[in-house]
């Protein structure tokens, strides 16, 4: 008996390898106190190497690990977005209570683990890697949400996320099982072939229920209504650097597999599921936007807004065309920039005001700290889809893809959703710039009574940091993200090319 060692494409696997190695190093670093303080540096280095590997593999188009993974344009682009988000999150977490309390290295290890899950998920082309990646993404995140041990909200959000997320995972698994049964295969391409050939042993209706369950499971991850309810709670309760990571990176990775699974594996059934996804998208747009209207917590508002944005992005999948995927990836990229800018400012404001993300803490910021106000302003305008930001181009792209595929009503829904969204995005802008001068009382003098209750006995928060707006590692992400949101609003073509690189990867499967 001869043993054929599998051929391993190290180049193709390099991002995963780099990330895994980095993860090991970070975990080991926890042991040595003297190395501990370089944790963030190590993490950033890891991410940089990973990003380097991803860029190195820019033009790759390979099946790896016997078809369980696939590195191609889609995987590379969306992994990059996740890596960027993770890197920002590392920066924003420096000095954050969650990071300190959980232990810096542990925190970073969890983050890196989750990122590893994302990178795997972006490359997954088999149910197994799909599920593994998804869980590897989720489980560290559950823990991360709970890392601010002093805050009740943090723990609450961790538990809620865990339970709801697990229900989602279980639903997904159940759906996957059905599809396995229907197609007799686990590889995405094989599933498609099996579904087309009718190899499976399930009736059409059960197959479709399986499709539905998978959709539900993924909808949990990307927070699509009506499976969205964890989102506002977790966004609000989780430590802000985690929220920032979660908002952006989770969406990137989950949408990557969403695209791959639905367009590749379930491509033959596209006529069956498109209306369902369209309905979900529309519902998300409505629910997310109206839900955000009267929020006072900025993070919670961004949570609802995330639901709506997920709805917009889902519309890209509904079309089941390359253009749709392009638009989705473009929008996601823009979304990264706008969310990073917003969350960075939220982090800074939180530290300055003793961990309040109430919108009232932003009053008069435009006058006092324009350097903080501008990133948030641009982020809000971009999220609202106003020119000259990448958000506008993103919406434009989506609408174009939708109309091209005769989904005009969904395009109109996006338009309507955007109108509603002005109601809350601009409230933030108004607080920044248009609150009467007298009420803008500066940093320290925020009326404490109006803030949400903090944990008892924490009068003097040791993590409060009035000088947070001068920390480069907090301000730089905000400014860079703002610049990106503006730059790609004015000169969008590079980002369009980026997005089309993702779409091109699917040219075999979709029109």
């Amino acid at each position, binding site marked *: 008996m001869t043993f054929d060692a599998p051929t391993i494409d190290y180049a193709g696997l390099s991002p995963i390898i780099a990330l895994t190695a980095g993860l090991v190093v970070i975990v080991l670093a926890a042991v040595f106190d003297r190395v501990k303080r370089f944790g963030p540096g190590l993490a950033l280095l890891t991410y940089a190497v990973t990003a380097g590997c991803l860029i190195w593999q820019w033009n790759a188009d390979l099946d790896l690990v016997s078809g369980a993974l696939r590195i191609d344009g889609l995987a590379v682009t969306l992994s990059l977005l996740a890596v960027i988000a993770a890197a920002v999150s590392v920066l924003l977490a420096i000095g954050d209570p969650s990071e300190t309390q959980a232990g810096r290295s542990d925190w970073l290890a969890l983050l890196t683990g989750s990122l590893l899950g994302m990178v795997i998920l972006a490359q997954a082309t088999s149910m197994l890697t799909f599920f593994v990646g998804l869980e590897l993404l989720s489980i560290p995140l559950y823990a991360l949400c709970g890392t601010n041990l002093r805050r009740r909200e943090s723990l609450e959000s961790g538990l809620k996320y865990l339970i709801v997320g697990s229900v989602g995972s279980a639903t997904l698994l159940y759906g996957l099982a059905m599809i396995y049964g229907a197609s007799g295969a686990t590889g995405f391409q094989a599933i498609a072939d099996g579904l087309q050939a009718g190899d499976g042993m399930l009736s059409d209706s059960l197959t479709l229920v399986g499709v539905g369950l998978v959709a539900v499971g993924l909808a949990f991850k990307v927070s699509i209504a009506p499976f969205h309810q964890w989102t506002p709670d977790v966004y609000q309760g989780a430590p802000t650097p985690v929220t920032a990571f979660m908002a952006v990176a989770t969406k990137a990775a989950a949408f990557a597999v969403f695209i791959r699974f639905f367009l590749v594996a379930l491509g033959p059934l596209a006529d069956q599921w498109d209306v369902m996804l369209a309905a979900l998208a529309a519902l998300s747009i409505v629910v997310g936007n109206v839900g955000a209207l009267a929020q006072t917590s900025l993070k919670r508002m961004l949570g609802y807004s995330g639901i709506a944005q997920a709805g917009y992005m889902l519309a890209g999948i509904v079309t089941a065309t390359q253009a749709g995927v392009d638009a989705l990836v473009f929008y996601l990229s823009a979304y990264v920039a706008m969310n990073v800018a917003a969350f960075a400012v939220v982090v800074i404001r939180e530290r300055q005001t003793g961990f309040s993300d109430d919108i009232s803490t932003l009053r008069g910021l435009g006058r006092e700290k324009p350097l903080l106000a501008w990133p948030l302003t641009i982020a809000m305008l971009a999220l609202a889809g106003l020119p000259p930001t990448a958000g506008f181009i993103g919406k434009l*792209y989506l609408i174009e893809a939708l109309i091209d595929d005769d989904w005009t009503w969904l395009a109109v829904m996006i338009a309507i959703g955007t109108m509603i969204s002005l109601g809350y995005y601009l409230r933030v802008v108004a607080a920044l710039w248009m609150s009467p001068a007298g009420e803008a009382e500066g940093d320290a003098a925020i009326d404490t009574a109006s803030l949400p209750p903090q944990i008892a006995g924490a009068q003097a928060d040791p993590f409060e940091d009035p000088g947070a707006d001068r920390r480069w590692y907090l301000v730089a992400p905000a400014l860079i993200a703002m610049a990106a949101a503006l730059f790609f609003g004015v000169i969008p073509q590079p980002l*369009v090319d980026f997005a089309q690189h993702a779409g091109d990867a699917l040219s075999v499967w979709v029109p």
Partner: protein
Amino acid sequence: MLSSIIWTPLVFGLIGLLVPRRFTAWVAVLGAVITLGLSIGVLAGFDPDGGMQYVTDVSWIPGLGVDYSLGIDGVSIFLVMLTTVAWIPAICFSAMRSTERPALYYLMLLAGETSTLGAFLAQDLLLFVLFFDLMIVPFYFLFGVWGRDRGGEDDHAGSPGEGAVSVQSATLKMIVFTLIGSLLMLVGAIAAAVISADGGELTFSIQTIVARGLPEGSQNWIFWFFAAAFLVKMPAFPLHGWMPDSYRAAPLPALAVFSAVLSKVGAYGFLRVVLPMMPDASDLFQTTMLVLAIASIIYGSAMAFTKTDLRLVLGFSSVAQLGFITAGIFAFDSTGAEGAVLQMVNHGLVVVPAFLIVAMIAERTGSEELGPMGGLAKKAPVFAVIFLIVSMATLAIPASANFIGEFYILNGLFQVGAAWAIVASVGVALAAFYALRMYQLTMHNPLPEGSDSREISLRDALVLVPMVGIVVVLAFCPQLIIHGSEQAVDSSIAIVREVAK
């Protein structure tokens, strides 16, 4: 060349961020003046029979088929001139008064000019939509940051006056209303391009889309998506709900250009985009549009003579005037459309000084309410005469270019149906009433206690007199504009006339 016209204001606005505070305003003035100079240069080289000129066409987002494509024709040139002219008094007027956060203020004002010019010059449908949307952003800030809350006021005639208005809610209302239209327009624009491409190469070039044509069924809904955007922007009855609050809250110099120029983008859009691109739908909905236009005239006039807040009088008079313009465009007659174009320019030229005068009146009386006002002419004959000329031009007294515009519009309407013209002409009579009322109640009658009849200062006169001068010159030769724009107007309505036959 056109690019430099568009971007000069913004560049100067950004320079304003860098220079010391006290120079900011003058950098802005300089920027506006240079822009005017550039646009005069374009006008000098403009050939009225030359169709689209100074064309710039660069691929912008090839992935989406969007080009950075600019061009100017007989219609846009005068609106560009109006824009570059109108911004100067607004900026100068502000420059002579101290402004909070001047760098930001002038940046926003100039960004507003850039985007407005962009909308007038864009020859790519999406570029047009983009600039159209972009316009609202700087004005959102201008209104929001430099506007002020207004308390509830009695109108001194025993009836309940205007309610309290907060800047935040007013500006929110404005931007939501405006974007309702323009987002739908975005959908419509994309649909127009996609449908007209019909599987071929996607392009947003207005000319190409017009040449390719749209199927009738699609035209019908796309028409309304565009119309919604334009009617809100104007604003037209019954989509003017945002106007009163934001007009009351806005800072006057910004409001002047907003009312003078931005409202015209809507009318311009009808002429440039809707009629050529959707001729069948335009023909189909002609009656509806005329009803809306006439309703705007009557309703706007009725409101204008009932309101006591000077800003609202002017605001609703704009509703009425824009009604005339819309009616002229939808008459599908070369006199009507030409009258509309002429009236766009005229109205813009009149509204800017009108709002600045309101600001000066407020400086003298501390109020913008007509009720307790009066007698300001006492020691200010020059001021009064300037206002008188402006009022007379507002009510389109014959001998003003406004009259020629209105007359042509009425003539165009008459070709559609005598009843349209007769009903619209009621608006002319009402205009006489509200414009004169505004003038009389401020300038005439006894001077109440606390008001200060002060002659216009030399600096303010330097701002207003050139504007009034242009109004007077145009009164003598409206043909200047007519000659330049006739060919372009005719070609704009040529297709729809063909269809209407």
